[in-house]
C-alpha cells in the first residue's frame, strides 16, 4: 500500500512540475515537487525506502524531461546519505532535520545536474545557474516542504522504532 502511495505521489509530482510549476514561482524559481516529495518521504520513512524511492522517482522524472535518463537518479541519490542528518537529531523535532535534508538535497541536485549536463555536452552557465537557480532553490524547496512534510506525516506516519533499555517499554 505504501509503495502505491509513493508511486502515486511521484506521478503527481511529475504532473505538477510540468503542469503547474510555471504558475508557482518564488524568488524566480519554481519548487521542485519531485525532490520535495522524495526528500520528505525519505526523511519520514528512512534509508531502506529511500533506496527504492530515489531510483524510481529519478527514472520516472527523466523519462518525462529532456535530461539524459539517469541524471535525476544520480542527483537525488545524496538524499540517502543526507538521512544521516536525521540520525544526528540536531533538534528535538524531526521537522527541522527534514527541512535541512530538503535544502541540502536541493544544492546537491543542482550541482550534480549541472555536472551531468555539462558532461553530456549541454552547456549550462555555471555561475548564473548557481546564483539564480540552485541557491534560491535551497530556500524555496524547504519552504514548500514545510507544507508537504506535515501532510505526508499525517497520511503516512513513520514506522515505529524499537526502544530497548532500562526503564523503557519495548514498542513494536
Amino acid at each position: 500500500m505504501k509503495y502505491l502511495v509513493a508511486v502515486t505521489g511521484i506521478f503527481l509530482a511529475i504532473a505538477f512540475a510540468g503542469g503547474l510549476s510555471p504558475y508557482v514561482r518564488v524568488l524566480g524559481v519554481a519548487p521542485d515537487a519531485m525532490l520535495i516529495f522524495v526528500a520528505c518521504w525519505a526523511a519520514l520513512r528512512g534509508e531502506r525506502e529511500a533506496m527504492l524511492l530515489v531510483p524510481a522517482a529519478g527514472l520516472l522524472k527523466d523519462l518525462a524531461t529532456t535530461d539524459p535518463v539517469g541524471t535525476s537518479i544520480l542527483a537525488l541519490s545524496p538524499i540517502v546519505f543526507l538521512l544521516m542528518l536525521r540520525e544526528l537529531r540536531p533538534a528535538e523535532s524531526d521537522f527541522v532535520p527534514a527541512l535541512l535534508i530538503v535544502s541540502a538535497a536541493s544544492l546537491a541536485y543542482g550541482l550534480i545536474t549541472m555536472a551531468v549536463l555539462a558532461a553530456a555536452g549541454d552547456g549550462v552557465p555555471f555561475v548564473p545557474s548557481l546564483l539564480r537557480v540552485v541557491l534560491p532553490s535551497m530556500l524555496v524547496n524547504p519552504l514548500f516542504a514545510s507544507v508537504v512534510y506535515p501532510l505526508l506525516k499525517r497520511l503516512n506516519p513513520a514506522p515505529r522504532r524499537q526502544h530497548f533499555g532500562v526503564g523503557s517499554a519495548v514498542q513494536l
Partner: protein
Amino acid sequence: MLGLSLISILLSESRTLDPAQNLSLTVTAPVQTGLHDLADPVDDFLQGVFNRGDLKRENQALREELERLQGQVAAGEDAERRLAELEEALNFTQSRSEDTFVAADVIAPDPSPLKHAIAIDRGSRDGLDEGMVVLSRSGSLVGTVFRVYDDFAWLRLITDTNSAVSALVLPGDAKEAAARGVVAGDLNGRLSLEMLPSGAKVTEGDLVTTSGLGGNYPSSLLLGTVTSIEERPQAVFTKATLEPAADLGALDTVLVMTSFLPVRLAGP
C-alpha cells in the same frame, strides 16, 4: 544506485531509451495538459483581481495601439502595392508559399529550471527531424527541434541558454545598414542581442530578424523587438535586450517548418 544512473545516462545518450521516453510522454502529457488547463483560468482570475488598475491602463493603451495600427494598415496597403511593383521589377521572388509546415500542439514544458524547452505532439512519424525550425502561429521564430521520438518531440526555445541565432537588426531608417549580431537566451527567459559592433546604430523598438548566416535558420524570421541597449565605453561590442515576438510562455500551437533543412541535415 550510481551504477544504475551511469548505465541509464549511457543508454539515454545512445538513444536506446527513446521508446521509453516516448511512452512516458504519452502517459504524463495528458495529465500535465489537464493541470495546465485547470490552472490557466485560476491564474487569469488572480491576475485580474490583483492587477485591475493595470488592466484598465492596458486596455486604454491597446485601444490607442489599435488605432495607430489601423493607420499603419492603411499606409501599408499603399506600400504593399509599391513593394509588389518593385518585386516585379527586380524579378525578386521572396516567398514562403512553397514552404511546408506541420502544425503541432504544445503538450508539456520541461520543468528543469536550467532549460527552456517544450514538448509537442508530433514526432518522426510526422516527418520531424532534429534541427528543424519552429515558428509561432504568426510566423515568428520560437526555436528548433532538438530531440525527436516517434510521436513526440522536444523543442529548444530561443530563450534557452544553449540557443544562439545569427540576427539582423532592421533600423528604423531604411537608409542605414542593418547591424548583425547573435541572439542568445538566458536563464531568466529573456533574449539578449550580443556581438553587435559598438558603432552599430541600434535604437529601442528596432525589429530583429534572423540573418540566415550559418545555414541553421532561414532568413527574415522575426525574433523580437529591441527594448534596451547596454553600451559600455571602450567595449568592442554592444549588447541589447529583446522582447520576443512570440509569447513563449503561452504557446499552444506551433508550426514546424519541414521544408527548410539546416545545413547539418541538408547534407552536401
